[in-house]
């Protein structure tokens, strides 16, 4: 894949420990970083001119083969953060670097799967054409075989000529995953990709994602509100505080792979980790004023 320059290697500082120590100005750069978000702040302005600081100060480093999840109470700017990290929105402050280069727009190496599959798959295109949309930057002669392979990878062989409305929600989201993976990205970003499917399909889709990621060479960044899902899939889980958000905690998961729904979720370690993450999420939720009047942040309301 010679489409992007190799990462400018930094040999000065190498952080090998799982729980990286945070310095005041974000994170120390890591050697294998593919994506780094540094001191990112996002202020959104609504149509009637009211601006809200959604993200105050978030830094994260994503290693080349890492799976990182971001959880947090609703309204903590997870989606906004992901869109900024994908180059879809300009940060108000701070910066995003992809492969060492500042990110100003969308780039071929980053794929995104959005929450609402019914809005992200183009309903007027067949499944095959939808997936081919993700392969537009590939050489023409490769596209057909790559689309076929991507569909096979998510178990949708034979569905290329079908239209989105003919498929179930889970199948549509698998098609969206195929579209994201068809270009062989460096980073796969997912914004609550399983939020609108039933629990059974959800578990199945989690395994599809885990397998896709294991078979690929990409890093994954997952935004979710499901603590168990974050722990099940990730190497690290970042918990965001309530709006305006900061990184409240970072939990290294370290469960052995490959993981399975039936076994991994039954282990005591999984329960422990989930409880730990949940504690932080609840702490963040309380601080937002939804629970008991505790250490409320400066933001009014």
């Amino acid at each position, binding site marked *: 894949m010679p489409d992007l320059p190799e990462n400018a290697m930094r040999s000065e500082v190498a952080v090998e420990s799982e729980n990286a120590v945070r310095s005041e100005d974000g994170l120390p750069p890591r050697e294998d970083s593919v994506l780094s978000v540094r001191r990112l702040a996002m202020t959104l302005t609504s149509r009637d001119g009211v601006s809200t600081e959604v993200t105050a100060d978030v830094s994260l480093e994503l290693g080349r083969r890492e799976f990182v999840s971001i959880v947090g109470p609703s309204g903590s700017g997870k989606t906004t953060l992901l*869109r900024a990290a*994908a180059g*879809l929105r300009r940060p108000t402050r701070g910066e995003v670097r992809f492969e060492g280069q500042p990110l100003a727009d*969308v780039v*071929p190496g*980053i*794929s*995104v799967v*959005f*929450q*609402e599959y019914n*809005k*992200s798959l*183009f*309903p*007027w*295109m067949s499944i095959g054409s939808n997936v081919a*949309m*993700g392969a*537009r*930057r590939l050489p023409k002669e490769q596209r057909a075989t790559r689309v076929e392979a991507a569909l096979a990878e998510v178990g949708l062989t034979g569905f290329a*000529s*079908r*239209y989105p*409305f*003919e498929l179930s929600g889970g199948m549509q989201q698998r098609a969206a995953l195929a*579209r994201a993976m068809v270009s062989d990205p460096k980073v796969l970003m997912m914004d609550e990709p399983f939020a609108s499917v039933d629990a059974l399909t959800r578990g199945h889709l989690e395994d599809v994602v885990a397998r896709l990621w294991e078979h690929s060479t990409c890093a994954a960044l997952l935004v979710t509100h499901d603590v168990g899902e974050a722990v099940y899939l990730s190497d690290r889980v970042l918990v965001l505080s309530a709006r305006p958000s900061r990184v409240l905690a970072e939990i290294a998961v370290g469960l052995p792979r490959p993981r399975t729904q039936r076994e991994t979720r039954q282990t005591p370690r999984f329960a422990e980790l989930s409880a730990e993450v949940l504690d932080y999420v609840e702490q963040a939720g309380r601080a937002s004023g939804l629970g008991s009047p505790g250490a409320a942040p400066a933001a009014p309301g």
Partner: protein
Amino acid sequence: MRATGTLMAPRGRRPVLLLLRRRLGSWLLGLGGLALAALTWQLLSLALASSIFPTFSAAVADAWSIVTGPVLTADLVPSVLRTAVGFSLSGVAGIIIGLAVGYYRLLRELTSALFDFFRSLPTPLLVPVFIVLFGLGGTMVVAVIVTAAIWPVLINTANGTAGLDPTMLDTARVCGLRGPSLLGRVILPAVSPQIFAGLRVAISVSLAVMVVAEILGGSSGIGYFINNAQQAFQITDSYAGILLLCVLGWLFDSLFLLVERRLLAWQRGTVGGEGDA
């Protein structure tokens, strides 16, 4: 014939047949309604036996002689052409301006008051102005049609474009779509349901305005013909003209629906093809 369970049958050709039969049934019923109205007209005119109210059969016979006579090329064809040209121009201009206005918020705010002003202008009012500008004839009629029929297309396209889902646009961006490919592959198809709704309204507006313009200032055309016949007390000719206009309107609309159904198949969930899911 088994009557039970056919509706619930998950597979097979039976539901398709059923649908076809139901469609044929409603079509026949519609035809029956038309026949009933024609019969009422016929009986009423026979009972009244008035010189200003011709029978249905007389009107139809007269319409037939119009279609087969010299009036066809003198009046009917020009009217159809004017309507087609006026409608097409309205459609193209309405879609282009509507896309621009819908996509750029600044442009939308800049034009909203202006468009509201022009939209509420009664079109017949423009006929005298356009007669001065374009003279009596086809160009004037087309101009009047465009000033009326552009609005439903423009407003619908603008609303549809402004309401595009941000997630859809983000998805397109992530896929590397921009410029003409973004417009052609995502924006236009996404807005097409609203565009078609606007176009369909524009068809009937085009026909109505065409007749008005021809009555007020035409030198030929079906409107001109109806008006002339009425002033010459050839009442049957007037009625025949009106009948022909109805048929024309119905033809335009049916043709349009045929195209729409084909292009928007993905939306109705009625993609023809290899069969049931």
